[in-house]
């Protein structure tokens, strides 16, 4: 359906927005381009949908060559761009009708398609209202409907759920899967939401700085990197701790180690069993561990491996840190928390010193908001499961837990090991599984992976 060879697009400023891209997308596939903002996703979609030219390479869409038959390509594709492009002063029906006219459908055909599409997207009641009155989710649905008026074989979705709330996002996913299954529509979507790529797509290409770093099914990508991810950080990172982490690479159950700043991601096949082993090793060598948490390997881990950056943190930098600050006022939750704990009202320096930047601060803040985070994250973690258990028993903040664990660390055995041990217990394991089951119950069925 799409065949791209050595595609290069250079912008006037000299940046290579798309750098030697190769893609082959089969009919009936949902294919996701996953990458941070500015990775070249939108540029790629604009080229494939005839909106942008390119400098080098060969592009074939729906069986037609881009250089020779862009008009034929236009007839075979539907595009839902990031900006909706529907007219807010027109009604839903008028928007659909105009689109039908531009694709030269007959009057009777337009009428029939409007009825069908409105029914499909559950917009029938709103059809004669101006789009101004629609919610964000409805606008996006109408936008997709207008792109489908001419029954295209191929649908481009550029960040389809950007800016939508969780509920609308999940509902939109449902439609995207339905379109693919029921109409056998080939879909190329771009996203910087890991969950979206993981849930919707048959295959994922990770794109960064205009290049594709990895391309496979989401499962295969995650399997390749090792099933579980351990995140390790130290109380006093120095050469010694660094050497300690690197020597873990030698262990037979460790498949991969990736550094992200001072944090070390260790990929292992049986995470629950490795946690106590690593903690014990650290104890034997007198290394203070600040954090040792376990999670299932996600696409973010894959992304980290291929690009050296975490996609989730980039997302935070660009979108979320100011959000939190704007919402809560300067100083944020942390300052208040520390103020509360000191009766003098004096602000005590948090563990590991004051954060150097707002990003760092909000990252730390993020850690404590594990409940909120689970909603966004691809999979839950053992750590989070026991944190939730802990919260029921004590009122401790996570910082205090860390402090406690370090005190114990100095004397006998570190708490992380204990907790990690408890993660071996059937109870906690069951909790984890329960959560996973729950999450898959709530979400629409996965497509059959190719």
């Amino acid at each position: 359906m799409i065949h791209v060879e050595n595609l290069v697009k250079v912008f006037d400023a000299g940046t290579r927005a798309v750098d030697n891209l190769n893609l082959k997308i089969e009919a009936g596939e949902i294919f996701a381009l996953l990458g941070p903002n500015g990775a070249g996703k939108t540029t790629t979609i604009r080229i494939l949908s005839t909106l942008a030219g390119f400098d080098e390479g060969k592009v074939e869409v729906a069986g037609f060559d881009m250089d020779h038959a862009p008009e034929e390509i236009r007839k075979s594709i539907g595009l839902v761009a990031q900006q909706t492009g529907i007219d807010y002063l027109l009604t839903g029906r008028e928007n659909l009708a105009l689109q039908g006219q531009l694709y030269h459908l007959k009057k009777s055909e337009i009428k029939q398609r409007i009825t069908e599409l409105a029914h499909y997207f559950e917009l029938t009641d709103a059809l004669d209202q101006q789009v101004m009155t629609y919610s964000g989710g409805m606008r996006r649905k109408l936008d997709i409907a207008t792109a489908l008026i001419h029954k295209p074989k191929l649908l481009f979705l550029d960040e389809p759920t950007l800016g939508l709330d969780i509920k609308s996002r999940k509902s939109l996913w449902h439609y995207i899967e339905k379109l693919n299954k029921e109409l056998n529509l080939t879909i190329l979507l771009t996203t910087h939401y890991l969950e979206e790529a993981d849930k919707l797509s048959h295959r994922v290409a990770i794109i960064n700085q205009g290049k594709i770093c990895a391309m496979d099914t989401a499962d295969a990508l995650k399997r390749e990197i090792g099933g579980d991810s351990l995140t390790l950080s130290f109380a006093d990172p120095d050469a010694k701790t660094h050497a300690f982490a690197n020597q873990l690479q030698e262990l037979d159950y460790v498949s991969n180690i990736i550094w992200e700043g001072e944090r070390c991601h260790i990929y292992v096949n049986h995470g629950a069993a490795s946690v106590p082993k690593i903690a014990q090793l650290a104890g034997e060598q007198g290394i203070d561990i600040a954090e040792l948490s376990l999670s299932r390997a996600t696409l973010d881990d894959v992304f980290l491996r291929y690009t050296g950056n975490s996609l989730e943190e980039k997302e935070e930098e660009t979108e979320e840190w100011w959000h939190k600050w704007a919402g809560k006022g300067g100083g944020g939750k942390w300052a208040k928390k520390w103020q509360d704990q000191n009766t003098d009202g004096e602000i005590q320096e948090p563990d590991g010193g004051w954060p150097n930047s707002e990003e760092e601060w909000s990252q730390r803040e993020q850690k404590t908001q594990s409940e909120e985070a689970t909603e966004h994250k691809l999979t839950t973690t053992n750590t989070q499961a026991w944190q939730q258990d802990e919260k029921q028993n004590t009122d401790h903040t996570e910082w205090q837990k860390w402090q406690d664990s370090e005190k114990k660390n100095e004397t006998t055995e570190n708490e992380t090991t204990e907790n990690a041990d408890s993660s071996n217990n059937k109870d906690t394991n069951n909790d984890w599984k329960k959560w996973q089951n729950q999450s898959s119950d709530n979400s629409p069925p996965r497509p059959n992976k190719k």
Partner: protein
Amino acid sequence: MLSDTWHLFNKYLIISFRTPLWSLFNLIQPLIWLVIFGQLFRNMAQLPGFPEGSYMDFFVPGVLIMTVLFGSSWSGVSLLREITAGSVDKMLVAPISRVSIVLSRVLHSAVQVMIQAFIILIAAALIGTNINPSFFPLLGGLVVILLLGVGFAALSNGFAIMIQREEPLVVIGNLMTLPLMFFSTAMVPQSFMPDWIAVISQFNPINYAVEAVRGTMVGELNASDFFIGLGVVGAFAAVSLMWAVSAFNGLRD
């Protein structure tokens, strides 16, 4: 191509009808000119060498043309808004000719200013201007106004694509409008102009449009002024339109 143009034109028309205030807003400025300038320069008609009739009879064609200039130069601004909103991408990705996209925008803008000019004309008649009531001269005048609207709306769209930003576009619109008005016989007869302005005015399409409207809609009929004006304005519209279409074709990034 024509049916695509019609469908898009129709869309813009619906949008205009749903925002009537915005369309009427544009009438305020010409109405102010009509009343205040008409009063202010009233006695100029008594000067020797001034054409016969009241100053209003002389001035109204100028105000009509000014309505066209002010109104049609907004077309580019609305194009930029459509680009930002993604509507233009939606049209570009459809299998339609680029010409029809430009043409529908420009025609819509021209029809809008033509209606506005007609309202000004009625207002002028109400305050006692000597309007020519016969059908064909009125129609002729409206055709000239429509073509001039097409020309300036096309220029505005072309500049919009070249500049890609709203603020400088508005500035250019204003910068263009006033000198074009002053270098024409909109406000004073040619015999009153200094020589150098009279020379420049010979190359100003506005000048011919004003004379054509003057020769049809107001006062004494003058067929030759009309046909010359129609030719000049028609050529101007055609050239601007071609330029706008070529700018639009370059829009592919």
